[in-house]
């Protein structure tokens, strides 16, 4: 994917503790009685070198905001972790100093930018636990972690299918993003990039939200109940 010109501009380093404090102090999630149509969701995806939260490193984060069930492109976010993307050889070209390329620092910077973007939104991801854990690990050095309510589309899809029966919910097979895409006939361009998967998840969430509404789930609290 070609990056726009502004992307190569040198990213500013944040003072991690300050950034985490600003996020925590400004954190104001929607009350659970808020109708979900009035809430802001951030549907996101992370790409990492593997599935081991401790050993694998963050490669990219992308997210897109939704106002209720409407996907708002202007409210989107994408960050590639420079250290892994360009490698040490490319550093002078991008004007990155060596400590920027130290994987941890850049992962943290990306995660901090994401914190600022997310604010108090409801976080949504497919198999969200992994993405949240990955970001929390990146934020830990600066004393931060995600405070947002989290909605897992995988869980929501199973829950809606089970129709409120805990027994059936437990027996429902896991639903991959590809299965959801096929179910709703969604196109899947740029699959397995953070941006492609986040947008695909957002379009799947639109359908899930309509299904939820049909079952009488109208508020943020209704959606988040597990």
């Amino acid at each position: 994917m070609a990056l726009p010109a502004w992307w190569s501009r040198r990213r500013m380093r944040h003072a991690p503790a300050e950034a985490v404090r600003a996020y925590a102090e400004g954190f104001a999630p929607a009350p659970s009685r808020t109708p979900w149509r009035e809430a802001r969701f951030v549907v996101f995806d992370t790409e990492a070198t593997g599935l081991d939260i401790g050993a694998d490193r963050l490669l990219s984060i992308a997210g897109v905001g939704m106002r209720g069930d409407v996907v708002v492109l202007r409210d989107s976010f994408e960050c590639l972790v420079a250290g892994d993307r360009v490698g040490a050889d490319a550093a002078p070209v991008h004007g990155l100093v060596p400590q920027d390329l130290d994987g941890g620092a850049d992962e943290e910077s990306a995660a901090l930018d994401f914190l600022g973007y997310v604010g108090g939104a409801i976080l949504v991801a497919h198999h969200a636990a992994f993405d949240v854990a990955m970001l929390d690990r990146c934020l830990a050095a600066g004393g931060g972690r995600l405070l947002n309510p989290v909605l897992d589309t995988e869980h929501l899809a199973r829950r809606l299918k089970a129709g409120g029966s805990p027994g059936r919910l437990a027996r429902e097979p896991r639903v991959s993003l590809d299965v959801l895409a096929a179910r709703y006939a969604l196109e899947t361009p740029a699959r397995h990039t953070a941006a492609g998967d986040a947008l695909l998840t957002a379009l799947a969430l639109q359908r899930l939200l309509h299904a939820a509404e049909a079952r009488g789930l109208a508020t943020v609290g209704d959606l988040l109940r597990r």
Partner: protein
Amino acid sequence: MSLFGSIVRMVSPGMLATVAARLGAHAPFDALDAGALGALAESVEIRYAEAGELLFREGTSPEGHAFQVQKGSIALERGFDEDADAEPVLVALADEGDLVGFRAHLAKRSYAATATTREPSLLYVMPVAALDALMEGNPALAGRLAATFAADAPLRGEALASAVRHSRVSRPPPRGSVPPGRSSQPPSPLPALSLFDETRNIEPIRDLVTCPPEASVAEAARAMAARNVGSILVLDDGRRPIGILTDSDLRKRVVAAERVPATTAVSEVMSAPVTTAPEGESLARVLERLLGRRLKHLVLTEDGTPSTAVTGVLSEHDLLTAHGNLPTVVLSDLRRARDRPALRRARDRGEALLQQYLDAEISMALIASMATAMNDRLIRRALALATAADAEAHPEPLPAFAWLSLGSEGRGEQLLRTDQDNALVYADPAEAVDAAARKTRFLALGEHVVSTLDAAGFVRCPGNIMGSNPELCLSLTEWKEKLGTLIRVPEPMALMEASIFFDLRYAGGDATLPAALRVHVHEETREAPRFLSFLARNALQNPPPLSFFRGFMVERSGTHEDRFDVKARAMMPLADAARVLAVDAALEEVGTAARFRALGARERKNADLYEEAALAYELLMRLRARSGLAQGDSGRFLEIEAMGKLQRQALRSTFAVIDDVLTVLMARYRTDLLR
């Protein structure tokens, strides 16, 4: 946006690229460059609507956004009211790629219809301000946008004009689909848009050879010889053009007239008045003027009229040598053809040329006037061959007569060679006893012309509408009686057949005969207003369908067809309507577009509608000619699936115009009372 003072703008380039690609998959956004598409993508919100969701309501103010259908479809209905029993009227269906809701904003009017999703639909919602901003810097996009939102509400006015212009920027018909035997020469690739750019301005001759009106013919001829030019412009004291003296004037009016002395004033032998035009017209417009009026020169003046000073001259010769001399070559070959095979060869070349011009998106008015100029010249040549044969058989001179082109050829709208529709009118014999002999003589002449035309590729009319038919080879008085009967005693069936007689155009011979016939028709129709009602009702026989939806044509009855009879369902209603209105207004114009434009000049109230109708008709002519060349037939049936989206939208945009024209007819001629 980052809270932490980062200057990096946080909009996902990956998502923008995905959305931009989807946006740009459809007209008009397919014409945008990556930068503009990215900017538009950033303003997009994606909405998923279940079937039956209301998007906007008829009569309410535009809400500041437009919808591009990504998946699903939107119904636009008038008179929509959930509580009422009355059925809403479906006015349009928007499917994948259509843009809905923008027109009301552009027109600064309330929504003309209620929009609801017909099935679950994925919609890209864009603020109209983003579209406005795009159009501001990109007039070409504005035109394409206009063509696209046809689905939103009927496309009208400037928007229709844009659609017509942009319908021309479409793929050429596939080559190789022309069956063998047709258009015998493969058209050589015409470097059309470079060599023959209709929008290019032409540099006129500025270094003019002129003389005052009192100059002698000898002086004028010397000036012409000294400068080696074929004409001299005659100007008054204020450098205003009052005439032109050409080589041909010198030959015919001075040398051949013998007794004209060389001291004669130029003003007595010059051609006057001259045809003037303003500066800066496009090549297409200039050629149209020249071909249409058979002029050799166009005099440019300060304000385009003869009452201001000359600024330059455009000559047909210079134009056509500078811009590709193919049309003149064909025309002069037609003029000089000695026999039928030579006429055929010249007309075949002419057809190849027309095909290239169609492919090159030259204006329809120019293409039609070229085709008509070629056909007229061919007919004139056929008449010359016929009168030569007649002269051999008859020592006494041939009485005055005129050859009439009827139907589409009469309207000057025949782009491709189809079957003949013509007739012959001759001067009344002084003595009744001569009538039979005269008729026999003209029937022979008519048969000679018809068989020449047949040999040149215009097959004989299966309905025998030809000048060789005793019913259609009549004296002026007989013609007046025939048309008078049709007008006074109209019968629906007879009228369908007869309507072509009201599209008659003088094609050669004595022009005073058809002029007298036209005056007579006008007088008769004034006496018989019922006739116009019948003619109007005829126009209402075959209204256009509602719309196209995906690959199908949607009828008002709800049925679907996958091909479209563009002649019966779109062109004939317009041509019929133009005929009624033109006959009523006693217009001289015979072409459908020309009739609508002339009507617009008289009826200010309907001027916009008539201009739209003229544009729509030109668009339909082009679609049909393209389809005909591609399919190797008359082009009458369009395969809807095979048309591009933009073409389909442009075609669909003509339906609303046709409907409005038919509504005018219904109201004016009270056709409801005839049922």
